[in-house]
């Protein structure tokens, strides 16, 4: 594969949370300003050639059916080309992948990738129900978000001896990391006892096994290798990306212990980057539920199938562990404003590779960070992006 290298030269986000005081446009503007401010040598916004926007739940915000004109005027960039990506939970990660391909193609020099999601202008009940009767009139009825993952927990426990304590270890670790992240929705520690005694949401998942409904926005600036040196002294590079899909209905799954979309997305990203899982220093993965992180770290190749729960319990995925996972607090603590989630994970990877993650900083030895999302009906959509601090 021949493609021109793409640099990440800026990134930023707003603090995630229930941002009742902020509009969608204000969040977008906040993330954009933070990303612009992070460009070391400065960037004139007028140099932005195109915008790739990720917003998944226009229905929750009351602005469904609006296209690329959703954000440019809010950013003061009216007239700039903008494409809106709606691709389930990987929307932000896919917007980044598309943005990278645009730059790599040579058509545009500077691309803004921005993810914005307003989850809490509607009630949590409506957010939950919004997907409980979509799709087929009968076959998916009652399929709220936890139903997409809880059957995997039931089966993972049955086949691999994974325990509620192992699931709880994921939540405890990510809430600890969140306590170190000033952008996180939740910034306090929790105990395993708290997780295990929290209300049952969708067995075997309890309240603290689940991510919250969060508002937020995050943005990244991508540019070509030639232009990168004009903007920063320490660029981070796109090493590879991959996307995978799988059947959209749960009854079509051949296995309830693995997500094939993640497996194929990861294979493609590793191949493009020319590396393997052991080269990754840090990973921001999709932990909408505790079981999801366990599935992820197995499907991404960090741990053998069935060993993910044990790894979480043993601290292998802590900031100081063998492979730090979700140092930002992950979706569980940092929050999951869907379109913004993947972009914010990439901001965290960018900070980690530049050594700017403060108390959350992990040891960077190989210079690779991996970002991953999986979601959609049947968890059938996944994107993996790999960034590197190594010069091309």
């Amino acid at each position, binding site marked *: 594969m021949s493609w021109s290298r793409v640099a990440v030269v800026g990134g930023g986000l707003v603090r995630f949370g229930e941002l009742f005081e902020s509009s969608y446009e204000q969040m977008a503007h906040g993330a954009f300003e933070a990303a612009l401010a992070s460009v070391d040598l400065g960037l004139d916004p007028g140099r932005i050639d195109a915008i790739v926007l990720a917003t998944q739940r226009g229905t929750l915000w009351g602005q469904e059916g609006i296209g690329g004109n959703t954000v440019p005027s809010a950013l003061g960039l009216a007239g700039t080309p903008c494409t809106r990506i709606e691709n389930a939970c990987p929307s932000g990660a896919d917007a980044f992948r598309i943005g990278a391909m645009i730059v790599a193609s040579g058509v545009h020099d500077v691309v803004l990738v921005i993810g914005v999601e307003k989850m809490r202008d509607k009630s949590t*009940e*409506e957010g*939950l*129900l919004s997907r*409980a*009767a*979509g799709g*087929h*009139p*009968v*076959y998916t*009825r*009652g*399929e*709220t978000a*936890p*139903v997409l993952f*809880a*059957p*995997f*927990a*039931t*089966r993972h426990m*049955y086949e691999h001896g994974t325990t509620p304590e192992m699931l709880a270890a994921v939540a405890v670790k990510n809430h600890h990391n969140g306590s170190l992240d000033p952008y996180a929705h939740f910034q306090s520690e929790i105990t395993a006892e708290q997780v295990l005694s929290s*209300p*049952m*949401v*969708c*067995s*075997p*998942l309890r309240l603290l096994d689940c991510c919250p409904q969060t508002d937020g926005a995050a943005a990244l600036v991508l540019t070509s290798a030639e232009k990168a040196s004009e903007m920063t002294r320490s660029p981070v590079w796109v090493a590879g990306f991959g996307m995978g899909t799988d*059947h959209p*209905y*749960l*009854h*079509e*799954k051949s296995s*309830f212990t693995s997500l094939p979309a993640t497996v194929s997305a990861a294979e493609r990203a590793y191949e493009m980057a020319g590396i393997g899982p052991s080269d990754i220093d840090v990973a921001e993965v999709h932990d909408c539920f505790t079981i999801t992180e366990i599935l992820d770290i197995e499907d991404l190749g960090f741990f053998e199938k069935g060993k993910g729960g044990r790894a979480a319990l043993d601290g292998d995925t802590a900031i100081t562990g063998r492979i730090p996972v979700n140092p930002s607090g992950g979706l569980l603590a940092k929050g999951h404003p869907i379109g913004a989630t993947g972009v914010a994970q990439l901001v965290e990877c960018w900070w980690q590779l530049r050594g700017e993650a403060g108390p959350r900083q992990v040891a960077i030895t190989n210079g690779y960070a991996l970002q991953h999302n999986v979601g959609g009906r049947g968890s059938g959509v996944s994107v993996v992006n790999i960034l590197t601090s190594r010069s091309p």
Partner: protein
Amino acid sequence: MTEANHLGRPLTASDHAFMANAAPSPKSRISAVGAALGSMPIDISEVARSWSSAARPGSTTIMVCAEDEDALTLAWQAATAALDAAGWDFSSGPAPRATSGLPIGVWWGTSRPPFGEGPSHSYLVASLGLPEDTAGTLITGSVHAGMDALLAAMDAIAAGSVTNALVVASDAVLPGTGTAVERATGAGAAAFLLEPEAAGPDDASSLIITIRASRSVPVLDRYRGEAQPEVGDLYDPRLFREEVLLPSVESMGRALEGAHESSGAAAIGTWVLPDPDGRLGAAAAKRLGAPAGPTRDLFRVAGDTGAAAALLGLAVAIATPGSPEATAVISYGGGRTSGLIVDAVSSASVSSISRDLPGAAQVRSVVARGGPDTSTATYAEVLRSRAQLVAMADPVPMGLPPASAGSIRGTAEVLRREGAKCRSCGWTSIPPTIHPACVNCGATGFDAVRLGTTGVVHTFVVNQTMPAPFTAPLPLVVVDLDDGSRVMLQGISACAASLEIGQRAHLVLRRYALERGAPVYGYKVAPAPAPSPGPAVTGPGDHGSKEVRT
């Protein structure tokens, strides 16, 4: 003074000449039977206490509908049991195979069709996997509808317009809150498969409907107007008892007896009588000098099952081992009284009933359930299940409108349990309308298959956080069906606490939702039923308690 009948009309010669007649020929043979009761046990004395009314002595537990059951799901359950018992095999596709001959018709009687106006009958036909040219009709309008369905099916058999008639009587009466009707109303269904008399096997006895009679008087007793969803109490229960029900049942019983005697058959051994309140049945039996046992026993398990009551009583009577050779059943509703007699007729080479009626064991197991030791639902749960207790909440529009093209496509394939079996790799893609290409190999050549109803739990969840209109706990279960396919469906709420990977399960038709006024149906996962109990050891005339039958 002119002699008058109980309603004040002068008696005429035709009143005195009223008599039952021989059933039209060819007569109908009952070849299989099935039954169902609502799955929610309620203690009717608790209902009485909730209204500060004295509980009647001897009141007990009866079965009503859970929130996802109604007259259609009960009809499906009873009819499926009868068809299974008859050995009808639909596994090769949506059209039945191996029936003793087409055409077939479905006669369904209920006072509560799922749609006041709509596709009630066609939903039942589709969910049973019967062909699109299935004949028959939906009969409704009073609790006499179940008996009417049976009479109409007999006529169709006699006329030769069908050679297989499925008769289903089901009901889920919605009683008014705080009424006496509420303390008597159960929910249930019975199904009979009929065929022309000659179609029976030569080497066994046959259950033949030999005598029938109907009578009609314009009397207003229990009624429900167009805008009225609930059934209320009788204006004057004494008037109904003394002037309507008891005289009607008595004169019908006498007419049946007379006709049966003159045909030279054995005396009627079992009487199944109308019993809308748990007392009238016994009073009617007393007037006829008949045992009250069968009527009383059924009420104690099922309560008043409305339009299903007469046929459910008949099903239980003929499913009881050692039952007498002649069984009479009388139904009353909406001014109409009908009666018929089922005779066990042996061929020359057989001297007694030599085999169990197909489905009899299933019927026995259905009525053996319930009873005072079953843990009962609270009154609030009962009200909620009838949508008489509704959360105050803004409705969130759910999914596709039920009459939209997408819902119609989806509903048909769900009711029929359609799958698309790949001709290349054998994988079954479900449902067909969303799978123009095979899930497994991408090929596009398919054979239509009808999914089975039995399998093993592969994985599951129990959702505890469901805002209205859903209710928690809501299980969602992935089942590996015995036919090799896999489905993910809601589980019935009663199984929430006991689900396990690897357990046997089966699919049952349930009402998923009432959406914009229309019921939405689909299959749900339920624990596999316990094996049917074998024939009981009790003898004729012993219509004793449930305990004896278990």
